[in-house]
């Protein structure tokens, strides 16, 4: 232990001889490590944001929509005839055991008017189950009941964006708004969700009972028609299975022949978001790798300076060998010097990286997440860069011929 400490002290003293040179050499490592720390923090922050968004959208989620994607883009039949019905939704609920909730819905663009304020938004007519499927919580008031669906009651639940834009500070519960000239009573307000993974404002929405939407809002459409069916599976294990079962069931119900395409599409949102998450991870890894390249450059800087240092201290090395230093002693001496350089650079880089990331995040509002593992890894990486790039000069020093070295001017 004492020899280790004294070697450390000797190395530090040697590096202090030319502080400027040591500082500049360290700069490469500092920048490299800081860059890696920042990239990893940004990457992890983005990933956790995506995970949050996935969770907020609802888990184990399948969406069935009419039309198929096989010939590039949505394909409706002539006359825009939708092929999904409420009966389909009921069948899915009844016949597929892995299904937890099913909610058919229909939607369209509407104007919501309160007093002299109006707001253009997306209206979704659906079942109360949809709120569970899509992870919506009620902040004020309540959801509509099955009874209200039965009776096509004119009640609605507002998203947070509508509340802010139409009501300002007034309590919206119990108020009357007009949707397509019909008066609707506000019975509930949703908890805000923020932006979706694809950038949409999820709070810009109003929910009404499915039947009300069909009869009043989108009445010209064929009754029983459904724009989409949202299905929540019981758990992630059965998700894929349920997806297949829904496809089989609908093909059967719609009497689709084996060689014909589906006239519907089942979207596995969890899968899609999973892909996005994967892509995010790959991007983070790529960013970190690119940042690591600057660490390599820093290492080359260390090798360069150590080579110069060895040449400058040729005489000193000759003296040491003459009085009994073995090759190993000289090797270790110089290796410790480059290790000290890279480790101190690593520590400074971690500090600067963390501070820089926090400042960046403050100004850009990008999410960041620090991981202890990443920091430790960066520290170890900088250490290995020091050892790897310091090895060649140290070895060169250890192989010097003492007679020639002592004669060196």
């Amino acid at each position, binding site marked *: 232990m004492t020899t280790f400490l004294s070697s450390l002290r000797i190395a530090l003293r040697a590096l202090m001889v030319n502080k400027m040179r040591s500082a500049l050499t360290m700069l490469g490592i500092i920048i490299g490590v800081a860059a890696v720390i920042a990239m990893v923090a940004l990457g992890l922050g983005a990933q956790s944001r995506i995970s949050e968004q996935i969770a907020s959208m609802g888990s184990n989620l399948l969406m069935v929509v009419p039309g198929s994607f096989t010939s590039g883009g949505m394909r409706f039949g002539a006359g825009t005839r939708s092929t999904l019905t409420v009966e389909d939704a009921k069948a899915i609920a009844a016949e597929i055991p892995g299904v937890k909730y099913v909610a058919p819905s229909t939607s369209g663009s509407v104007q919501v008017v309160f007093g002299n304020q109006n707001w253009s938004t997306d209206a979704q007519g659906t079942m109360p189950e949809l709120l569970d499927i899509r992870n919506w919580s009620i902040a004020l008031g309540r959801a509509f009941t099955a009874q209200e669906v039965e009776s096509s009651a004119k009640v609605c639940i507002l998203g947070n964006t509508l509340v802010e834009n139409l009501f300002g500070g007034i309590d919206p519960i119990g108020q009357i708004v007009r949707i397509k000239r019909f008066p609707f009573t506000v019975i509930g307000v949703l908890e805000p969700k923020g932006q979706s993974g694809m950038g949409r404002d999820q709070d810009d929405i109003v929910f009404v009972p499915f039947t009300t939407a069909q009869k009043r809002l989108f009445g010209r459409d064929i009754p029983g028609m459904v724009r989409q069916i949202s299905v929540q599976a019981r758990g992630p294990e059965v998700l894929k299975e349920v997806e297949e079962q829904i496809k089989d069931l609908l093909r059967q119900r719609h009497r689709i022949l084996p060689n014909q395409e589906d006239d519907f599409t089942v979207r596995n949102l969890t899968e899609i978001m999973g892909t996005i998450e994967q892509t995010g991870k790959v991007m983070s890894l790529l960013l970190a790798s690119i940042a690591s390249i600057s660490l390599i450059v820093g290492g080359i800087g260390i090798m360069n300076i150590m080579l110069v240092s060895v040449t400058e201290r040729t005489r000193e090395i000759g003296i*040491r*060998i003459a*009085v*009994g230093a073995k090759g190993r002693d000289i090797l270790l001496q110089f290796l410790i010097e480059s290790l000290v350089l890279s480790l101190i650079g690593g520590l400074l880089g971690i500090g600067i990286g963390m501070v820089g990331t926090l400042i960046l995040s403050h100004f850009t509002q990008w999410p960041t997440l620090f991981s202890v593992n990443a920091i430790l890894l960066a520290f170890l990486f900088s250490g290995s860069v020091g050892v790897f790039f310091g090895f060649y000069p140290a070895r060169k020093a250890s192989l010097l011929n003492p007679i020639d070295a002592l004669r060196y001017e």
Partner: protein
Amino acid sequence: MNLPNHSAGIDSRSNKVSMTGRRVESFIEVQELEKLYRLGEVEVQALRGVSLRIEKGEFVAIMGPSGSGKSTFMNILGFLDQPTRGQYLLEGINGENLSRDELAEIRNQKIGFVFQGFNLLARTSALGNVELPLIYARVSGVKRREMARRALIEVGLEERGHHHPSQLSGGEQQRVAIARALVNQPSILLADEPTGNLDSRTSIEVMEIFQHLNRDLGITIIMITHEQDIASFAKRNIHFRDGRVVEDRNSALQG
């Protein structure tokens, strides 16, 4: 520390050489030493067959013009270099088949070097410089300090332990170098023009230290010099010329 087996080496060699069958054990034994340098395409025969013996406790001066091979000879004596032919035994130790590391160990334990240019570490204190061989001998910090202190006392510099070479005069620097050479209690002290960078008065001071070490502590000293008056401090003068010993005199002066 594992040194090669003395007796095996010396018995076989000495018995071969000695014609009368008498077992000879000299402190330093040199037989038909040759050294050939190849510098690119040029070949230089630095030593052309040198044979001699030096006994324990001798004080020898080696003289000769430049190119006579005396430095080459000293390098071989100090285990810094190996001969191309011939043999060198120090206390029966033959450096011939030893590795670099093993030679370093022998130098550390058996040889003390004193150079014309002092060759101290500029950014280290006098004590630190003297401690250097002890670091490589793996002596612990406390003991190192003590041994270094005692060596400095021996050369009369106990007050200057914490000074750096730049704060010391030439003579003082050389004395630090001598202390360093002594600190590990070597078998021989090899000095290459030890007074070359010193004025006459300081030179005499250094020579008096050498004499004290040789006479009172029994240290074997071999020194290269080109100055006759310095050489006369030594009891034995060996002259080199063109890679050979041309003269080997014991002087009656300086008892």
